């Protein structure tokens, strides 16, 4: 993008293989502003992931007290004060929409913030790289060892590295299953080998995927497997801030001494001393000076590396930094830099996020905790009785989403003089049957509605079942039809 490429370089008459072996990346350790941000975010992300299952949330007797729990056997999802039933899974759609817009907004503001700091692939790979450097030494030591022969010491270190990796991977899988069962109980069962087989299977699968993705696949996941870099490239605009090598300031590259000579002649010398530190620290092994590219996850580590070097040679930091091409061009033209975090795109994303949040919040606040569904008998749809009256059968399904039993009364509005009978319920109030609904469950009942036959009546009239919680006064209703034979 920045360097002019001569046409000769573009012509390749080699019919070489389409496959290129991976070049192993040895990112050098680095310290600085973005590195410390990354360390902190890693601690937060992993901390939340590993510890969240142990957070307790009291919900009353008989209900699980785990703050975040996906309870498959009982078909419930618990998230702190929220309890969702399977039919309310559309909340997750809202959550996914929200996640997408949040990603777009992040991208419009600061490029691949997700990729560089928050993506699990980045977080775990970063952790694995740290372990690798701790055990096998920094970039140079590793490269030297890999080029040399295998020694006992080296083999021992390598074994240690894999052991630590596997342990982290195992913890990752172990934490995953804790979201699906009571965490303390499951930890005890796992330790005493009494947990269900499926728990061990999932731990094994996630151990394997973590180990392979963070230990071996690494940047290849971002470059070859992940769709986001492709989408991100299409979504970005010229105002979005990206990790950028400010080539207006850096080019032409030359050593400190040479730059001094050139500058003393009054000609332009770039600030880049071509030390390659930005390349050495890059976890995806790219050269940021080639411009924005798919392989760049924008983790900001090259900024730290470059700033350290610039400080050392006594030049202004920020040769690599969050910037965009507009500002590069403006500086070249001698104009002031401008940044536009508030622009149509970000405003639209932010408003969409607000709207989706508001809709979800409203849906959550107004969700019913008492509900009734009705299903008309299909066969026979209507029954003539011996006295000529007409009867229709229905299946009513009641949902009590509260954590306690409650008594409800059922009323029916429909054909004139309609009478309601609940099968199996010897109610003390025959005209207005009362039923006990168990806590946090559904109850299915068969009810019969009988009405006198009226030749002039419509073939089909609406019938409404109204359900009233005797204690709380909550109401719900469901409508179907009363039909004549």
């Amino acid at each position: 993008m920045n360097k002019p490429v001569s046409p000769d370089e573009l012509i390749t008459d080699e019919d070489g293989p389409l496959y290129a072996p991976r070049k192993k990346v040895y990112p050098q350790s680095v310290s600085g502003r973005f590195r410390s941000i990354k360390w902190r975010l890693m601690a937060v992300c992993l901390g939340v992931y590993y510890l969240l299952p142990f957070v307790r949330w009291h919900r009353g007797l008989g209900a699980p007290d785990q703050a975040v729990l996906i309870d498959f056997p009982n078909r419930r999802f618990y998230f702190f004060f929220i309890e969702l039933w399977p039919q309310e899974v559309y909340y997750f759609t809202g959550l996914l929409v929200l996640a997408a817009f949040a990603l777009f907004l992040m991208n419009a503001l600061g490029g691949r913030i997700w990729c560089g700091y928050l993506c699990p692939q980045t977080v775990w790979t970063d952790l694995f790289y740290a372990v690798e450097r701790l055990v096998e030494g920094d970039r140079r030591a590793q490269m030297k060892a890999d080029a040399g022969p295998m020694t006992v010491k080296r083999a021992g270190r390598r074994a240690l590295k894999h052991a630590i990796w596997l342990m982290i991977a195992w913890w990752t899988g172990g934490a995953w299953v804790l979201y699906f069962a009571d965490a303390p109980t499951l930890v005890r069962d796992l330790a005493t080998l009494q947990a269900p087989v499926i728990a061990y299977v999932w731990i094994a699968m996630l151990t394997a995927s973590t180990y392979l993705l963070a230990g071996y696949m690494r940047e290849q996941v971002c470059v070859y497997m992940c769709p986001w870099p492709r989408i991100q490239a299409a979504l970005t605009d010229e105002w979005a801030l990206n990790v950028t090598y400010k080539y207006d300031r850096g080019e032409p590259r030359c050593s400190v001494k040479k730059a001094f000579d050139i500058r003393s002649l009054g000609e332009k010398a770039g600030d880049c001393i071509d030390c390659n530190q930005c390349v050495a620290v890059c976890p995806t092994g790219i050269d940021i000076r080639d411009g924005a590219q798919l392989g760049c996850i924008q983790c900001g580590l090259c900024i730290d590396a470059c700033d350290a070097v610039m400080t050392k040679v006594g030049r202004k930091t920020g040769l690599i930094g969050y910037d965009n091409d507009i500002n590069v061009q403006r500086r070249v033209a001698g104009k002031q830099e401008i940044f536009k975090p508030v622009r149509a795109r970000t405003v639209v994303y932010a408003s969409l996020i607000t709207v989706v949040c508001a809709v979800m919040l409203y849906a959550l606040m107004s969700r019913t905790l008492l509900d009734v569904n009705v299903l008309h008998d299909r066969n026979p749809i209507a029954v003539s009785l011996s006295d000529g009256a007409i009867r229709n059968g229905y299946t009513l399904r009641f949902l009590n989403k509260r954590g306690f039993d409650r008594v409800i009364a059922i009323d029916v509005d429909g054909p004139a003089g309609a009478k309601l009978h609940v099968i199996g319920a010897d109610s003390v109030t025959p005209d207005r049957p009362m039923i006990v609904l168990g806590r946090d469950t559904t109850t299915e009942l068969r009810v019969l509605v009988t009405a006198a036959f009226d030749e002039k009546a419509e073939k089909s009239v609406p019938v409404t079942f109204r359900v009233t919680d005797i204690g709380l006064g909550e109401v719900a209703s469901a409508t179907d039809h009363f039909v004549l034979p």
Partner: protein
Amino acid sequence: MSEHNEIDRVSGRSTTGHEWDGIKELNTPLPRWWVLTFYATIIWAIGYWIVYPAWPLVSGYTTGLFQYSTRASVATDLADLEKLRGEKMAVLGNASLADIEKDPALLALARARGKTVFADNCAPCHGSGGAGAKGYPNLNDDDWLWGGSLDQIMQTIQFGARSGHAKTHEGQMLAFGRDGVLKKDEIVTVANYVRSLSGLSTAPKFDLAAGKKIFTENCTSCHGDNAKGNPELGAPNLTDQIWLYGSDEETLVETITNGRAGVMPAWVGRLDPVTVKALAVYVHSLGGGK
């Protein structure tokens, strides 16, 4: 193959020696992993023959090392199912019919079991929803030939009607016409009289008194003085709105002339007692039960 190892100048690979109109075919051997996988599948197949049933013989087949059989595994699964069901069904077996209907959990269990069994055994005649058909009673209504209480329904399911079982319901509509008891015009008259009992229209020149006389002399012994039927004999109520075979004059004449004797099989030996119980509760809960 030495004559085939001509090297292609462009790709640098050897050719197979085949040539068509100057176009030569490059030698592209199968990848080694593919060949090895292919051999592995052959070895796998041989192992499979030894372990699993594989080859047909003259009378039978090779059974394999483990004597594996899908039929046997189905039998095992069915046995497991029966065992699982047995525990739940034992509860049904110990409860009385009335208690089952009062307990929501037992009612749901009995209805679920009854519905399945009904679909398998009863639906061919009574229809999948128990709505019946001409000659096959509707089980949803409140008109019962042999009584609609839980016990009566269970009795009918167990022993059937005119099924030949020793305890079955007996009694049938006689063939008054065919047997020469009533003449054609008398049958038409009494048919019109029966229609009048439930308020249906009658023929213009119909003689009510004559009809009543014929009815009293021939029909009341089974259908009762008030024509309300007798569940002991399976004699239907003739004053209500429900007609098993139809209420038009032609059908009634046919009924009186040739009689009726629909058969319901006995299920006592075919379904186990708990299943019959569940079935009785299910039929009762369809809505017509008394």
